């Protein structure tokens, strides 16, 4: 289990920071919000030039073959800079699902293009949105000759603009299964939903008897592998929350040192100092949770260990991001409450993410069941 931020990892981190601080600053992010929640130019560079989508994809499928840790480092920076591009849906949702749960054929077919940044993908998981504990409950698939017919709806499918491929989770004979759905398939409608967090648009997927060829069935029939992949996704999402929390802390420290009240910077008031220190404690706990979980996954874990790893990453990162964003608004005072200042962007995203891929409450209940051995 390697937690060291060695030179290679620092380079990955620093390069991401340099790129995003230049190309995903507040003004650019706000412009992307006005343009439907995506900065196509930045995505083009990330996918095609910087190769971020392939960082954790195995080398045999055209990726760099690095681990979840390295992907988490990218995601952390994406969170800090509110990246308005489908890195998460492509590299953190679709890629692990294909790599972990896909058949050989599916991997060979989709992963190289995905790793090369030529394919933008997302995942439609359930009627309730990105809920890893309800996989496939929105769509029913029925075999029909040499094809399958899909009917149903999925809420909160992340990132629509520019998406080429939707991996749809369905129930097939009662069991979860995955299908590849090209975004332009006839009978499939992706209805964009307006969201508070304008940088992470979501859509509702409506499938009205969509007919897909047999080779659209992606997974190898291993439901545990699907859950493993989604746990990896949860850890990658937690990394994004971590970056978001860190940025809230940094923004607020900077503001507190500059803002004068009662004749001195508010950073000098012990109550403000302690609040910011408490934010730091939560941010560092989240970082330990996320890095620890990613390093464990990279070193190899049992399904039980993975449950604890993903639960710790997601619950601690959610808590850090929500608390850091709350205190960013609070300690900015009146301006923290305005559209013009950035804290609300982080605040809305932290809240939205806390319901993606399992709330902290849901993860904790699963951990409790495991811990107290009263459930499967």
């Amino acid at each position, binding site marked *: 289990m390697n937690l060291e931020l060695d030179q290679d990892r620092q380079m990955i981190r620093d390069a991401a920071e340099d790129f995003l601080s230049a190309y995903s600053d507040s003004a650019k992010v706000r412009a992307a919000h006005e343009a439907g929640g995506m900065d196509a130019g930045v995505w083009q560079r990330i996918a095609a030039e910087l190769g971020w989508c392939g960082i954790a994809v195995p080398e045999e499928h055209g990726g760099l073959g690095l681990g979840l840790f390295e992907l988490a480092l990218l995601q952390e920076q994406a969170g800090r800079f509110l990246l308005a591009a489908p890195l998460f849906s492509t590299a953190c949702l679709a890629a692990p699902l294909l790599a972990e749960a896909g058949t050989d054929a599916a991997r060979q077919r989709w992963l190289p293009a995905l790793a090369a940044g030529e394919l933008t993908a997302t995942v439609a998981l359930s009627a309730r949105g990105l809920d890893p504990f309800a996989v496939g409950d929105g769509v029913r698939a029925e075999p029909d000759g040499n094809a399958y017919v899909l009917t149903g709806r999925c*809420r909160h499918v992340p990132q629509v603009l520019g998406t080429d491929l939707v991996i749809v989770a369905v129930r097939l004979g009662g069991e979860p299964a995955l299908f590849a759905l090209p975004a332009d398939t006839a009978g499939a409608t992706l209805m964009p939903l307006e969201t*508070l967090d304008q940088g992470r648009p979501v859509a509702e997927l409506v499938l009205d008897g969509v007919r897909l060829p047999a080779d659209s069935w992606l997974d190898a029939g291993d439901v545990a592998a699907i859950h493993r992949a989604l746990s990896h996704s949860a850890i990658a999402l937690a990394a994004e929350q971590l970056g978001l929390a860190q940025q809230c802390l940094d923004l607020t420290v900077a503001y507190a040192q500059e803002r004068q*009240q009662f*004749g001195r910077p508010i950073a000098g008031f012990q109550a403000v100092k302690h609040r910011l220190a408490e934010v730091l404690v939560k941010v560092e706990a989240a970082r330990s949770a996320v890095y620890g979980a990613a390093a464990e996954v990279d070193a190899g874990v049992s399904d039980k260990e993975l449950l604890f790893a993903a639960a710790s990453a997601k619950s601690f990162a959610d808590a850090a991001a929500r608390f850091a964003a709350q205190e960013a*608004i*609070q300690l900015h005072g*009146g301006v923290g*409450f305005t*559209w013009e200042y950035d804290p609300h962007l982080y605040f809305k995203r932290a809240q939205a993410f806390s319901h*993606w891929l399992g709330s902290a409450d849901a993860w904790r209940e699963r951990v409790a069941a495991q811990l107290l051995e009263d459930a499967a």
Partner: protein
Amino acid sequence: MSEQIESLRRELADWLTPRLAGPFGQLRHRGGPGDEDALGVERKEWEQELARGGWSCVGWPTEHGGRGLSIAEQVAFHEEYARLGGPGRMGHIGEGLIGPTLIAFGTEEQKQRFLPGIVAGTEFWCQGYSEPNAGSDLANVQTRAVRDPDTGHWRVHGQKVWTSLAHESDWIFVLARCEPGSQGHQGLIFLLMKLDQPGVEIRPIRQLTGTSEFNEVFFDGAVAEAGHVVGAPGDGWKIAMALLGFERGVSTLGQQMHFAHELQLLVDTARKNGGAKIPVIRARLAEAALGLKVLRANALRMMSGADDGQLRREALSYKYAWSNWHRELGQLAADVLGPDGDVIDGELNRLQQVYLFSRSDTIYAGTNEIQLNLIAERALGLPREPRPVVPSKG
């Protein structure tokens, strides 16, 4: 006594119910905090309808056009009004703040000029206290008022901020510095100013809700008439603080009925969307319901105390208690809504408004941090925060 109150409640309900079911139906439960920019024209009409029914300024003495209701009756009025979904009061700054201030400190001319418009719902007020570089440091007033020696009028230069309803108001009361070089609480003046005049500019502030209830108000040589100073020049701080004292009044019970309405919406949502089955959500909903009950008891304690002008512990801690309760209710609302809480259907729904707008509750009218200072220093007698030797350049 209790019967008298019951009959008041019935009288109000009989008056209110048909109006909110009929001509003013769209105003039901609208226009509260987080929704103050809604339906401005209609809510002004509503204020006049209230006045016609004799339901404006019910706590004011009859000689000034009020009903002279007792505290207990006012409580009942505000509770019943809010419970039945009476719209947020566009006139509350006039009725609750500047009106009582003028009754207490105004000249006879000021009373005659201003009170009738407030009672009738024909003149609306907003407040000009906060400034961009002041924030929690309310006494750090930079807005200047200079007396014209010929006319006796005051010319005002400066900027106020977080002025709610400025764009809907006719008048503003302004705290300004009338003694050049003075600092802090000294040398301030309390002025009444018409908004519709040259030298006044109002710019809405866009909030995190996307809407604009607050404004910036810029003064560039705008005029306050000589007769529109409340108290003496230099007494501004005293008047301003007294005015804030009126704010902690019985209308807080009405606010709590709004909260109860929000809580009920939340309970209904949780029952519909399955949140009511999640144990941790259940515990938080119960905690919210109990917390609201405790806020009510707290407010009743505040009103049952001796009226000796002293803010007692329950009153000193009340702002902190209700604002954090409400912020937590907003967070709970977002958690109950779950992923759907992020989705907007045309405009923010009420629970999304509560979630976002309640973030301001712990900031305006004394941030959490200022409130805790106040409690520590005034209620517990702990040492005051050291004041800097050199005044801020802000």
